[in-house]
């Protein structure tokens, strides 16, 4: 290879992970390269997102008028269940960690690969297996339980709930293996000089995500298994007719599913911590605060699950404990928001597409987060619980924040992953459409919730009509914006301008390697002497001073 890094900074890296060591389907399906696995995950989650988005559009169309519009109640119930299951288990949870995390984490650590490449590939195939089992259930009737699978409804429904439960169970293992790999990789694979306090913030957040994946997912797996056993054999653990306690299911479910919200949002924060630094050319304001707040979210996020049970007959005492602890989890998000904003101070801000998504992200995270804390305010929750206010709140976090981050990541790292640029003008147009369309979709839903419209309603009293029409209109703008993104990105992958190793002038570590990166990430093991995103000095000469690695 060309020994001079200066010449690599121009143009397209000829020997990259996309064409080496081999091309062809087989070399991809059996690859152990974390970058290829990341790309395969990216394709898979994008397909899942399109499917979930399609369900979402059908739901919004059905709600265009009170009463039946395009489907009947049974179909509608299946649609929102599938929308939830696909979006959460097949898109949100793996989207950023398994796709971008896989691609970037080892590169950011200066490692050649993740610690267990075979487990990494297994994780991908488990994802496919879980998705297939769940899809089988969907095709053969689907479930009508909602993605929350509340007992005893889920144990008595006649729809095909068992394959969907098993699918989610298998997907849980995929998630666990990815998390396990990331933790071990971060602990043991860091390049020389990469101390914990020099880790890119992306790594910190993905690490915190992995902790949650490891500790929470098994409980969900067991719970889903119990529901499946109950549904199939009637063992009575959650069956009130046999002395079982359906509320116990809710405890188990939210012990996973509340932290799972952080599995979805922490990677978004990971992306945005990189984007805000790169596009304002500033070091992060308060590195330690941002880094440790990720761990704080991961830890405290486990203490708050009971705020989903405020109206389920939970005791006042336990409710109060969960209520006050829920207030603390908001603090960590607040720290990040303030530090990101302060990072802009005295920066050099370039308003390109990823940064546009950062702006949208900041807006959605602030309002999504604040409404979340408001929801945890106990007496307000009694009014809002299970209404459209909740729906709007978590869509602000999941779609608003996480989807913005996903899109920002796609645009920011597209040059790294493919070596090519996307069209900036189209990017900005689509970003504006996505952000505005999203607001038009979900702000009316906050008001619907205030007004008292419960969620999962197939039909509604007429006084909710106007706001529902507004919401559906917004959803169509959002959908068009997303289609534009998809189209120009697909074109850009083939025909985009060659980007070069570092088109953004970013000083994140992943930009030190050529685009697209070679199979082993770096020609020589890098040595780090400072943290990422240090912009106050001139770029240093190449700091890959390490000797040739001992084994090749």
């Amino acid at each position, binding site marked *: 290879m060309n020994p001079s890094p200066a010449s690599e900074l121009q143009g397209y890296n000829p020997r990259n992970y996309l064409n080496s060591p081999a091309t062809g389907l087989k070399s991809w399906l059996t690859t152990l390269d974390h970058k290829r696995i990341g790309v395969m995950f990216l394709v898979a989650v994008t397909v899942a997102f399109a499917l979930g988005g399609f369900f979402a559009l059908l739901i919004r169309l059905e709600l265009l008028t009170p009463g039946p519009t395009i489907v009947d109640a049974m179909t509608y119930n299946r649609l929102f269940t599938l929308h939830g299951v696909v979006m959460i288990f097949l898109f949100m949870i793996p989207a950023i960690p398994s796709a971008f995390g896989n691609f970037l984490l080892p590169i950011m650590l200066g490692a050649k690969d993740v610690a267990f490449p075979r487990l990494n590939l297994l994780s991908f195939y488990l994802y496919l297996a879980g998705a297939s089992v769940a899809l089988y259930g969907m095709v053969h009737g689907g479930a009508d339980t909602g993605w929350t699978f509340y007992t005893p409804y889920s144990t008595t429904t006649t729809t095909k709930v068992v394959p969907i439960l098993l699918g989610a169970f298998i997907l849980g293992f995929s998630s666990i293996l990815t998390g396990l790999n990331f933790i071990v990789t971060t602990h043991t694979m860091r390049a020389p000089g990469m101390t914990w306090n020099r880790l890119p913030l992306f790594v910190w957040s993905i690490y915190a995500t992995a902790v949650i994946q490891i500790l929470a997912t098994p409980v969900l797996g067991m719970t889903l298994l119990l529901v499946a056993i109950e549904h199939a054999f009637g063992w009575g653990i959650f069956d009130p007719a046999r002395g079982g306690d359906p509320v116990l299911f809710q*405890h188990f479910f939210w012990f996973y599913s509340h932290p799972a919200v952080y599995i979805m949002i922490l990677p978004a924060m990971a992306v945005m911590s990189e984007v805000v630094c790169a596009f304002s050319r500033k070091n992060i304001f308060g590195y330690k605060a941002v880094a440790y707040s990720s761990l704080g979210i991961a830890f405290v996020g486990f203490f708050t699950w009971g705020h989903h049970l405020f109206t389920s007959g939970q*005791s006042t005492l336990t409710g109060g404990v969960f209520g006050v602890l829920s207030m603390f989890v908001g603090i960590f998000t607040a720290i990040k928001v303030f530090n990101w904003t302060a990072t802009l101070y005295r920066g050099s801000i370039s308003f390109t597409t990823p940064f546009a998504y950062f702006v949208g992200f900041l807006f959605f995270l602030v309002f999504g987060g604040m409404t979340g804390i408001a929801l945890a305010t106990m007496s307000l929750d009694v009014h809002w619980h299970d209404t459209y206010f909740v729906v709007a709140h978590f869509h602000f976090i999941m779609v608003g924040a996480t989807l913005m981050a996903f899109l920002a990541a796609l645009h920011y790292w597209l040059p790294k992953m493919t070596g090519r640029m996307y069209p900036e003008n189209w990017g900005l147009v689509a970003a504006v459409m996505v952000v505005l369309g999203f607001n038009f979709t979900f702000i009316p839903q906050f008001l619907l919730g205030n007004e008292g419209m419960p969620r999962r309603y197939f039909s509604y009293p007429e006084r909710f009509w106007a706001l529902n029409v507004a919401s559906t209109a917004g959803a169509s703008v959002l959908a068009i914006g997303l289609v534009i993104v998809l189209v120009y990105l697909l074109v850009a992958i083939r025909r985009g301008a060659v980007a070069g190793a570092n088109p953004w002038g970013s000083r994140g570590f992943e930009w030190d390697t050529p685009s697209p990166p070679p199979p082993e990430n770096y020609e020589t093991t890098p040595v780090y002497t400072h943290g990422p995103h240090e912009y106050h000095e001139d770029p240093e000469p190449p700091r890959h001073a390490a000797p040739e690695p001992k084994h090749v």
Partner: protein
Amino acid sequence: MAGPGAVAPVEHAHASHVARYAIVWIALLALTFATWGLSRFHIPGGWGVAVALGIATAKSALVALFFMHLWDQRGANRLVLVTSLVFVALLVGLTLSDSATRFPLSNPPGSEGALPVGPTDYGGPPPVPPRDRGLTP
């Protein structure tokens, strides 16, 4: 490192390990008999449970520290185990505290403080109109 001088410490360490394993094993057997024996006395109140779980915790600590070598390996591995135990305590503790303190009729019929087992049709009024039950169990 691989020189002849290095062998002796390894051998020595091994001998002490065998002794250590044997002591731990005997301790585990003794504790097993102890917990079985104590259970035959039917210690009143919650203490029987506390004693049994205390002994189990001691036994598992022995296994984790010596058979699983956490005594020798510091750092991340210990942290992993301790963290997972914290979350075990969290899930058990908070879930149980809810069952123990909620409105008693919200617990399954036939259980502590709730309604007696009856017909599954609860159309009619419950047998005891619970009035004085609020925040406390």
